[in-house]
């Protein structure tokens, strides 16, 4: 039962209040910023603020900063594997019908390459990913 207080992490009230108001301020910022258009940066900004907010919650409300590091490991582990899931699936979904041209280079001169379309045309039957279908997109290099 040594260093009981440390084990139980009784944090000062002001810290909780500070973190809480920080979260509210960030919420306001993200809403305000979202009204402006930064093009592709929109996603990055919104997600960046969300990550900061999430870190605050995890570190202070969930005590990860003060607790045994194993809990941090468990939590980051879940995010790591979630990342693997999404990114590896995207290796497929974003690159369908796309053979990397560097490797195909030697064949390119005399080959028809099955690859991603520059223009999109809907198929005769329903297609989820019209921008990625390869049907009418078999382009010739001659």
């Amino acid at each position, binding site marked *: 039962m040594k260093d009981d207080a440390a084990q139980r992490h009784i944090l000062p009230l002001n810290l909780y209040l500070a973190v809480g108001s920080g979260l509210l301020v960030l919420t306001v910022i993200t809403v305000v910023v979202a009204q402006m258009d930064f093009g592709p940066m929109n996603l990055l900004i919104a997600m960046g603020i969300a990550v900061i907010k999430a870190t605050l919650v995890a570190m202070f409300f969930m005590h990860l900063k003060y607790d045994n590091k194993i809990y941090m490991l468990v939590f980051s582990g879940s995010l790591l594997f979630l990342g693997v899931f999404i990114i590896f699936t995207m290796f497929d979904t974003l690159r369908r019908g796309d053979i990397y041209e560097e*490797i195909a280079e030697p064949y390119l001169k005399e*080959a*028809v*390459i*099955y690859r991603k379309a520059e223009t999109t045309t809907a198929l005769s*039957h329903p297609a989820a*990913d019209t921008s*990625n279908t*390869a049907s009418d997109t078999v382009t010739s290099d001659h």
Partner: protein
Amino acid sequence: MDTTRSLFLPPQGSTVASDVDALFGFIFWISLFFFVGVTALTVYFCIKYKRKDGKSETTPYIESMALEITWIVIPTILLMVIFVWGFQDFVRLHIVPANSMEIKVTGQKWFWSYNYEEGATGVGELVVPVGKPVKLLMSSKDVIHSFFVPAFRIKMDVLPNRYTITWFEATMTGEFEIYCTEFCGKGHSEMWGTVKVLPQDEFDKWLEAGSGPGEGESMKDYGARMFVKNACNTCHSLDGSKNVGPTFQGLFGRREVMSDGTAITVDENYIRESVLNPMAKQVAGFDPVMPTYQGILKDVDIDGLIAYIKSLEN
């Protein structure tokens, strides 16, 4: 290398087959070497170090980092060789040569149909010329199927929402099996077809020849040919047994109860309608799964089928 092929692999019918087989042989012999090594050591140790009279004594422990590293590094190198080799062949399998002829392949429950650029169509039997690359542009009308020709070492899933592509160049004439390898329901195991590889001149002749009975062939015989060629036999039996669809034995002139309760007598018009618009009137007790042959069968083909069905008496 030849022994692994004759035991394990089917004939090499396409240009890529020998490369795929060479890698298979490479892995086979390496695996066999290590497998024999592992098994021999295991058996040898079991005999050599067998416990005598139920007694055993403590023996000092040996540890060898060098050994551990060796058996991590060597397999890693071998596996990387295999990966790169397989990768290169895979790229070849996926890059369609420029001078390919294109055939549209459609998979549906439970047969394959083909549309040639020249306008010819086919069901079940894919006719291609020898020595010419053929690109297959494939899609499915219902669930996922998979187009597999063992002799060509090609396989590709056929999807309902987009096109997939595979290609081959046949190196010998003859007939080779096509299988569906993605489970697609009741008729999955009979979703067979054949690739008929013809010499170029015969292929050209085939492509030009229209449909209709050959010289000296009766309409009935022609219908019998159409019955198999268009895969009617996958669902309709000739011996009275119940399959996916009603049997053709004694079908003509029979009174059939429809799914809406009415009864009709099977005649020429009913058969024609069932081929072109199968959902219009269905015999009770069967699932509504028959696909339409509109655009696939010509009038003369249907006439042949009617003549054939008429000839199938009880």
